[in-house]
């Protein structure tokens, strides 16, 4: 997958970037331990010039992960494949609402997949994540303006440093189709313990983001 990903890096958007976008984003190439592609730049490439190669790269990386996510959430295999497909098609169709200063590619795609899954139950479409950021005026606190791509790296690093009991509940909080009470039952823990572990872990991750952004 990495070979394909690297081939898909288009020097036009890796080197230059568009004016106003943080130069720091590109430094990820230098600091990353393994070959990696700036996924946000790929979405921007789709928005700016319908770049099919960028789409292929995003698809190869994210579709199988979105499918894995949906399977964990209890979606049956066929529907998971279809929804993963639909998630990536939504990325193509709506790439222009993606704001790389606001969210990492993985965050936006996670939110799209999550909404499609909920909407499948509700059978309706709702505004995409990214669009709803502007509802009610753009009043987001400045400290919420994350250097999105860097944050993702930081969050990942931070999740890795959480004590095992905390990282387990955070994963379960996102990746099981269960309320916190059921998670507690599965782990044979009191609900209060599960809730406080989730809170503690999320507070750590949040503090980390606020201190560095």
């Amino acid at each position, binding site marked *: 997958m990495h070979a394909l990903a690297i081939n898909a890096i288009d020097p036009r958007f890796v080197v230059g970037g568009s004016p106003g976008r943080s130069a720091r984003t590109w430094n990820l190439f230098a600091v990353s331990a393994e070959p990696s592609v700036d996924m946000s730049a790929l979405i921007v490439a789709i928005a700016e010039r319908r770049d099919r190669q960028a789409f292929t790269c995003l698809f190869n990386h994210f579709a199988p992960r979105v499918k894995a996510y949906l399977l964990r959430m209890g979606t049956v295999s066929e529907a998971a494949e279809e929804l993963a497909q639909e998630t990536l098609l939504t990325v*193509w169709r709506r790439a222009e609402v993606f704001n790389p200063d606001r969210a990492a590619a993985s965050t936006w795609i996670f939110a799209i997949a*999550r909404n499609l899954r909920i909407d499948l139950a509700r059978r309706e479409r709702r505004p995409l994540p990214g*669009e709803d950021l502007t509802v009610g005026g753009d009043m987001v606190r400045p400290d919420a303006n994350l250097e999105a791509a860097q944050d*993702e790296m930081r969050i990942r690093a931070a999740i890795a440093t959480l004590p095992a009991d905390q990282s387990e509940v955070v994963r379960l909080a996102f990746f099981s189709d269960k309320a916190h009470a059921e998670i507690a039952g599965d782990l044979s823990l009191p609900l209060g313990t599960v809730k406080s572990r989730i809170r503690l872990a999320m507070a750590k991750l*949040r503090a980390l983001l606020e201190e560095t952004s």
Partner: protein
Amino acid sequence: MTPRHHPSGDRLLEHAAGQLGAGRDLVIAAHVAVCPACRAEVRTDEAVGGALLDSLDPAPMSEEALAQALAQIERPTPSQPAAPTPSRPDWIGFSSPALERAWRRRRWAAPGVWVSTVTKGPGPARTYLLRVAAGMSVPRHRHEGVEFVTVLKGAYGDRGELHQPGDFAENDEAVDHKPTVTQDGECVCLICADAPLVALDWVGKLFQPIVRI
């Protein structure tokens, strides 16, 4: 106006992680759409979700999945849902096709009251719009399970607290109340209740079989 009554951090996390059912999710989404503070918190939670998504072991897509996606993106993009605007001009800045449909289907339920179902389930749970005229009270009642409420228009008083447009409330089984709409004008709320409310006075006992909430 910025809302003053918010969902708990646990509820926001469940919303960000897609753990709430469609009905509860919609009630929270309505609040989040107009609440910058909660939106910032949800965005941080989503960033954690995105980072976790990225670190999942991929579930392979079928062999033809990419080819199908590439064929799909060649086709003209289907029409998109309109940019988010309030469902009604005088409601808070949140829209959803389900709310639109419910508003059109609203039916008279009692003098000064209309009700319209947005979505049903799971089980006896129901999500609905409730309109109550200025100065009127909902007869005294309590709840089985939990009720989520977001004010879409107008305001009501409840146990000494004023709930205004965008405000969120979660009422559990311990709550025994008689919310009263302010004199300023009608109040429209989006409500998701686990079960029909339990009337506690004779007015309510008369009112409930007719209004069916």
